[in-house]
């Protein structure tokens, strides 16, 4: 279950909502949260309740949310702990912690209900630069292809790896990534030809 596999949870009530609305709502909630006072405050309940109320309409499983929040926590806690090393730091520490988690949670809800291609559509309507749009679209399309290619190469490499040396592993990873780049460049060339063959200018 994953953002790339969005068809699998396409039935959530909010998945059908306009993606512009969802993007704006997420942006609104996150901006509001970021602008709230930097100490735990009653106002923090506004984004918190909004998100809790929205959650059931997104059908995002609890396990997924917890797992992703925990992953994000590594970094959030890291920075938050740094902020502790100062006098009277507790308010800033707790407010950063709460704010960050609320924001991550809104992003999780957004990405869970909004396929990336809808985001792309929205960006297109917002007149995002064409070069960036093409790059994003091609990137989205070829992520799985390159991922599969990486996996095949890693597997082939692993089947011929008999001894474990750390630098050796690094070198073979570098070879895989180097090879991946070469294949990407070759594929880019073939894609260019295929696009031209269908009249692209």
């Amino acid at each position: 279950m994953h953002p790339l596999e969005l068809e699998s949870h396409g039935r959530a009530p909010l998945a059908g909502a306009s993606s512009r609305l969802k993007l704006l709502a997420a942006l609104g909630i996150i901006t509001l949260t970021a602008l709230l006072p930097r100490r735990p405050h009653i106002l923090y309940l506004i984004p918190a309740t909004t998100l809790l109320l929205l959650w059931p309409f997104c059908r995002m499983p609890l396990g997924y949310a917890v797992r992703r929040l925990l992953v994000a926590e590594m970094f959030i806690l890291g920075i938050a702990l740094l902020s502790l090393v100062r006098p009277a730091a507790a308010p800033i520490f707790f407010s950063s912690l709460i704010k960050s988690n609320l924001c991550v949670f809104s992003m999780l809800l957004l990405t869970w209900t909004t396929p990336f291609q809808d985001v792309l559509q929205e960006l297109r309507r917002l007149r995002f630069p064409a070069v960036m749009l093409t790059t994003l679209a091609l990137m989205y399309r070829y992520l799985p292809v390159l991922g599969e290619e990486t996996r095949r190469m890693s597997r082939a490499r692993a089947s011929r790896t008999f001894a474990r040396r750390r630098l050796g592993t690094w070198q073979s990873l570098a070879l895989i990534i180097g090879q991946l780049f070469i294949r990407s460049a070759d594929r880019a060339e073939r894609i260019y030809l295929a696009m031209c063959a269908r009249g692209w200018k």
Partner: protein
Amino acid sequence: MSAAVEVRKLSYQYPQHGRLALDQVSFSVGEEECIGVLGPNGAGKSTLLLHLNGLLPEHVAPAPSIWIGGEPIGPKNLDLVRQRVGLLFQDPDDQLISATVLEDVAFGPRQLGVEGAILKALVGQCLDQVGLSGFEDRQPHRLSHGEKRRVCLAGVLACKPSVLVLDEPTSDLDPRGRREFKALLQSLPGAKIIATHDLELVVDLCSRVIVLDEGKLVAEGATRALLSNEELMLAHGLEKPHSLMHRHPHGPASPVS
């Protein structure tokens, strides 16, 4: 009536390593003809196919050596040539560039200025033609290899080409996929040029074949006669197809001498 494709003394040298990839190749293809292009790996088959679409040479040659429906390929008519000649690439992942099947099939017609409801209808019709009705909203990375190939073909058909050029159309397909793809190709009108190692496909589809080796056209002739010439086949990294070895399709196989 002019031939669908006419190639006269086509030569090409790769600028990177200077190797002669095509050496004075000449042949022609009739309006409804289907020909096979055979040859070992590296014989220049793919290079030839790229030329048919005006993708090679990088800088258009001073004198034309390819005519599509009587029109010489030159810098001025590249768009026309690319619309008339539909090229199906070997790896469907190279060709499928959009996030959804609908977007991808629409890619070609959009360049030709087709939009809106007409475009949608055209896409539906092309998907129908390749047996993938209702696949509009699917994502390419969730399709099987055979389905990807069909979507690519639909994207090519959407430009309404008069000549289909296919690079290894059946590689990586399972037997059923191959059979279905073959039937699909058989059902399509227009001239077809198929570069392949799949000799059974050639036997079933192509009336004529040309054999390339090291950039040269080494043989040309009717499919069955040419493929039965075992000496010629072996000399160019090919072999006599299984179906031509027995008199009866279910009889005992005659030993290869």
